[in-house]
């Protein structure tokens, strides 16, 4: 069984934000919710790098562990999905998430959070809706994964910085790149997310 992962090769990312736009468009993500974002480190300094980040679909996901209603779970492909029917919008998954992935629409007074929204690896939702149905799309966005496709953010990355797919395959691609060009700033988030690094 393939273990789906994301890998952002920061030495290729040009901070174009096309992955962010692709995600918003493909999943019709509401205003104010960003399932994916690009963070620039050392902005304007030598060695500046940009990293595209969303839910990393962690091994042993901390969000799933802390969820007080246990609505988050990893699928057999390692994709972390959640059931919005059960989510109570407590915000705990955001505190536990090492990558700032969970997003909440503001509903009502104070900081009242609505049902959590996050990257689904373009694999639809974790609720009872039929895969690929209109109900599923309205709640969770696209289910490309069910059609045998990878997340759109990675698929349309112009520099092929953002890789999605089976962890072993994308790790191999990254390793070859680093060996060929002679440098690499590392597989961002892999140690924290998957508890493993790509040894070059």
């Amino acid at each position: 069984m393939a273990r789906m992962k994301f890998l952002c090769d920061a030495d290729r990312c040009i901070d174009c934000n096309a992955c962010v736009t692709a995600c918003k468009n493909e999943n019709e993500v509401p205003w104010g919710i960003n399932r994916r974002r690009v963070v620039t480190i050392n902005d304007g300094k030598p060695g500046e790098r940009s990293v595209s980040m969303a839910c990393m679909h962690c091994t042993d996901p901390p969000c799933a562990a802390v969820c007080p209603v246990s609505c988050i779970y990893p699928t057999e492909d390692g994709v972390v999905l959640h059931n919005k029917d059960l989510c109570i919008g407590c915000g705990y998954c955001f505190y536990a998430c090492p990558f700032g992935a969970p997003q909440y629409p503001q509903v009502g007074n104070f900081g009242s959070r609505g049902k959590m929204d996050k990257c689904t690896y373009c694999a639809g939702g974790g609720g009872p809706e039929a895969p690929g149905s209109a109900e599923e799309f309205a709640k969770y966005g696209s289910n490309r994964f069910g059609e045998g496709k990878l997340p759109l953010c990675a698929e349309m990355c112009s520099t092929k910085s953002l890789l999605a797919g089976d962890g072993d395959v994308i790790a191999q691609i990254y390793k070859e790149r680093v060996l060929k060009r002679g440098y690499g700033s590392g597989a961002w988030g892999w140690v924290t997310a998957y508890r493993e690094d790509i040894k070059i």
Partner: protein
Amino acid sequence: MTALAHIRLLIVGAALLVFVAAAPALAQKFGPDGAPNPTASVVDQTTLLKQAPRIEGRIDIPDLKAAVLEQPVGRTWDYFHEVLLHWGGAVVIVGTILLLGLAYVIIGRIRIAAGRSGQKVLRFKAIERFSHWLTAISFVVLGLTGLNVTFGKIVLLPLVGPDTFSEISQAAKYVHNFTSFAFVAGLILIAVMFFKDNFLERVDLDWIKQGGGFIKSRHAPAGRFNPGEKLVYWLSIGAGITVSVSGFLLLFPFYGTDIAAMQIAQVVHAVVAVLFIALILAHIYIGTLGMEGAFEAMATGEVDLNWAKEHHDVWLARQLKPDQPGTPAGTPAE
């Protein structure tokens, strides 16, 4: 030099030190021709995470908390919430209940030794009882809804199933959020009303020396509140302020706080709340089961004269002074 100038000097000094220390590292980041060497000066996450627990950068969206690229501390917080809090909370709360049960078995209900006199003395005014019950009821509501967030999925979820449990938890979240205001109002009222009677007095030393009323042969003298009650007062005020402040930080997420502050607020809120529950369990025990004649003080506001003699003789003497001895006092404490 003013204090401000001192601070400024310190900052400049520290900045210079950092600059001097960073100079060799900077030198490597330039090629032989002096141009920046992009691959030598590249940031890598291992180094960044050694420097700070969180990697932050610049983002193009207005959501400032999204600028934190990586925070492995999230897993630490997960460990706190799922292991330390679950075990610690269970041990403290169940342990307190067991200890109180043991106290009941060993000491039993502390009776009014002389029996009831039939005469009543006013101990708590209506406004004082209102404040107490406002705080007490909201505390119980907050406690139960709060425990549901931590223990619900272990205790309640297997019983009612995911859909019902989610509905209960959703309602509990809103009840918890809104009851907080009632609790804070009650806490302020209590803090102000009982403030002056909760300072330590000379008589409190005698009370402690006499074993605090737990040794049946010895009389422990006390004013309006004995040191045990004073301890409950000060701990409650302290814990109440702590859970209120941390709770409002959680209620208004990321209003001037960052992810680190939110995690700390949650940890403080949870730990203090668990200890607070243990304290209040003991308070409930001694006010109901543990002592005859104590509950009516907060129920009707009046206590039996013999109860007052046995537990709050100094206060009673002050109460009775203006009137004939033995007749109910017209005004409460002081």
